[in-house]
């Protein structure tokens, strides 16, 4: 029943339900099969023989089996060996690239700075006008003195920090 060229169906494993051909009988237990399945050693109990027999030689090559299968209208499983790809490795950025990065950052920072200054100026002009109108002379003077420096302090240290931080990065 089981001979070289016998068509069979694989019953077990991940190739179960696929058709194959017996290429070689290794011993009383094992066969070499090929076809829709992978070319592999296989237990006799793990295939169900069919009635058709294909004319092939013992240890026939994969290409011969492919020709025979094409006659029957079946497709052979093609396995491709994996191409070795180089492991991606991190590269240090060249000084030119770093410079470009910094320039881009500076441009962004400048845009934000301009916006901030505009907003701050707008607020600064409006507030003191209101205060002078509302309060007493002495109190108004005190309030203005107190509040103005606070704002200036708020502005200055931020700028100073940014200015300081840039040279440090350089």
């Amino acid at each position, binding site marked *: 029943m089981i001979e070289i060229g016998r068509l069979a*169906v694989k*019953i*077990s*494993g*991940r190739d*179960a*339900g696929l058709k194959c051909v017996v290429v070689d009988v290794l011993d009383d237990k094992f066969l070499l099969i090929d076809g829709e399945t992978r070319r592999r050693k296989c237990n006799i109990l793990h295939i*169900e023989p*069919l009635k058709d027999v294909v004319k092939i030689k013992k240890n026939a090559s994969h290409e011969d089996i492919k020709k025979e299968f094409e006659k029957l209208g079946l497709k052979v499983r093609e396995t491709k060996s994996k191409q070795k790809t180089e492991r991606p490795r991190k590269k240090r950025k060249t000084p030119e690239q770093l410079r470009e990065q910094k320039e881009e950052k500076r441009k962004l920072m400048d845009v934000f700075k301009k916006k901030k200054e505009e907003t701050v100026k707008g607020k600064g002009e409006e507030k003191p006008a209101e205060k002078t109108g509302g309060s007493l002379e002495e109190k108004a003077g005190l309030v203005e003195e107190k509040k103005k420096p606070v704002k200036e302090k708020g502005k200055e240290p931020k700028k100073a920090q940014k200015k300081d931080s840039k040279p440090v990065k350089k």
Partner: protein
Amino acid sequence: MPEPYKRSRTLRRLQVKVPGGATRRHYKERKPKNAKCGSCGNVLKGIPRERPLKMHKLPKTKKKPTRPYGGNLCSKCTRTLIVEKARLQ
């Protein structure tokens, strides 16, 4: 009185030894039932008994056998089914 959800039996109870040395009762969600074969009803092997969230995190090959009908039929039933199909042709 414990909280209402701890009074019902929806959560399973564990006796856990805490670092201080005392045993304390912990409440955990119950695991789902074992997966079973669609034709014979036997318990399927190779399928972990975990909640959906944990199953979601597992790799594909650890969730079910890679053979056809894997995860639905047991190996014996798939064999008989495939053999029957082959003999009918």
